[in-house]
């Protein structure tokens, strides 16, 4: 903008160096930015019918793929995808659980290999809002993921009219998403804060500054493996850059807190903590069947053990990557192509995967 038109709120740290999940910490495992848009003239997904959904689906699909820039994306309709595939997409947060209910007229556009963990952009069509555009990037990457989302929105906006109100901003089916409709959510792994009994304080602090805290799988899910999902609650009345800066600052704080909790554990011997780390190790090593939840709990403790030098003889591992590999749907997709796997079979495969990937070559003389 020029002088006559001075700039508004500008992010101070927009170019701040992104912290990678595979770097030295692995505290912020992944970042997701999403916006919601509704196309003017149509009823929202909360009450619309199949015919309306199909019309929107085609409209969005045709608009999006009319641009040559969008060649790298693929389009999927929900009712043509096999159940295992649908579950896998939900497990990877690429589509929401709601997308797997009432399938007809729903679809999504995706870029990035759904088999590969990490970076992905998805546009859900006919969720409760006509469009949910989201970008997921490993590590702390708030600004980058938002930019990806906006790029997609720009392409769609050339031909589509989005519902908007000067006071409420972008209009959404649920009033919690009004305004910018921007939701930044990060998945954080906080074993040190949890074992130091600081979770209570941590949750209180975050609730005070209007953040929602949930379990790994978002709505309706419990906390497993010391993994939390943290997101901004307010989307109306703040600039996009403001929301991002606030979330970024919160994340940097969380990283600091987890790091100092780890530092404390490293310097001071805690028999209780050491005991549960070694118990976790023992379970992972000898268990023949492991559920997904249990694996995450145990691996989280093992990861902590490595970080605070209680366990020294195995190599550090990428926790986030492992979560993707160990999920039920991923195991089904990789091993259940020709045979029908029962849930105990999945638990068996999971236990052996962990042994193979992490514990192989472990020095027996701890």
């Amino acid at each position, binding site marked *: 903008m020029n002088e*006559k*038109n*001075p*700039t*508004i*709120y500008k992010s101070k740290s927009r170019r701040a160096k992104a912290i990678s999940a595979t770097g030295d910490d692995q505290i912020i495992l992944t970042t997701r930015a999403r916006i919601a848009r*509704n196309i*003017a003239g*149509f*009823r*929202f997904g*909360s*009450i619309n019918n199949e015919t309306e959904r199909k019309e929107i689906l085609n409209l969005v699909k045709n608009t999006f793929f009319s641009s040559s820039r969008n060649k790298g994306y693929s389009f999927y309709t929900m009712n043509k995808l096999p159940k295992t595939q649908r579950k896998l997409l939900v497990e990877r947060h690429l589509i929401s659980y709601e997308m797997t209910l009432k399938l007809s007229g729903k679809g999504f556009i995706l870029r990035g290999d759904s088999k590969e963990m990490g970076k992905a952009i998805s546009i859900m069509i006919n969720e*409760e809002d006509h469009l949910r555009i989201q970008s997921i990037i490993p590590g702390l990457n708030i600004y980058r993921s938002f930019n990806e989302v906006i790029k997609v929105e*720009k392409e769609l*906006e*050339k031909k589509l*009219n*989005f*519902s*908007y*109100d*000067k*006071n*409420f*901003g*972008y*209009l959404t*089916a*649920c*009033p*919690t998403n*009004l*305004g*910018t409709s*921007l939701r930044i959510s990060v998945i954080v792994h906080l074993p040190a804060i*949890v074992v130091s*009994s600081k*979770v*209570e304080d941590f*949750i*209180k602090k975050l609730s005070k500054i209007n953040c929602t*805290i*949930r*379990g790994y799988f*978002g*709505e*309706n*899910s*419990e*906390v497993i493996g010391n993994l939390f999902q943290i997101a901004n*609650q*307010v989307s*109306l*009345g*703040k*600039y*996009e850059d*403001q929301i991002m800066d606030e979330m970024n600052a919160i994340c940097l704080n969380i990283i600091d807190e987890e790091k100092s909790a780890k530092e404390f554990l490293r310097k001071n011997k805690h028999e*209780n903590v050491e005991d549960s780390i070694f118990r976790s190790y023992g379970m992972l090593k000898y268990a023949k069947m492991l559920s997904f939840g249990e694996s995450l709990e145990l691996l989280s403790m093992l990861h902590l053990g490595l970080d605070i030098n209680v366990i020294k003889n195995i190599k550090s591992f990428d926790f986030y990557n492992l979560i993707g590999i160990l999920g039920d749907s991923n195991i089904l997709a990789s091993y259940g192509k020709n045979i029908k796997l029962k849930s105990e079979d999945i638990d068996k495969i999971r236990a052996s995967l962990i042994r193979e990937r992490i514990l192989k070559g472990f020095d027996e003389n701890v």
Partner: protein
Amino acid sequence: MICDFCKSNEASIHLIKVTKNNVEKIHLCMDCVKNYSFFSTEDFFNDLTKILSKFFEIDIKISSKDESDKIFESVSVNDNKKCSFCNIDLNTIKSIGRVGCANCYNEFREVLNPIVKTIHGNLEHKGKVPVKSSNDIKIEKEIRDLKYQLKEEVIVENFEVAAKLRDTIKKLQKKLYIGKNAN
């Protein structure tokens, strides 16, 4: 996950009790929560966290899918008018926790304003506007942005810039006024 109390229904509320050496998990279904004699249903929904915190002597994370469905609970439906575009009525909005279309925000503005204010703390959108918006909307956005900047400049006592901003705002307001009257 099956409810720990009745052992039959699917649990939808998951509690975690963290003590020094132990993490204890409790899974409850809505029915058991409601029948649980320690607190009435109303209290439960009014201040779930507080009550349970007291009960378990710890701050607990509750994530219930119904969270966002409850936002309309305070709405009393005396006049059950329908949206002229999508035909949804307030009762339905209340029960599904969602509005039916963009026009609902217009027709039920009075009812929705306090709800939106509770959620977001204000009623004034800042940030992006659609590229295809009318000129008025674009000017209104510009005024809002400039007002925001004006406030910031006054805080840092940058009065020279602030004065310029004020002038620009005035000009834009005039432009908006003329434009609206012309229509």
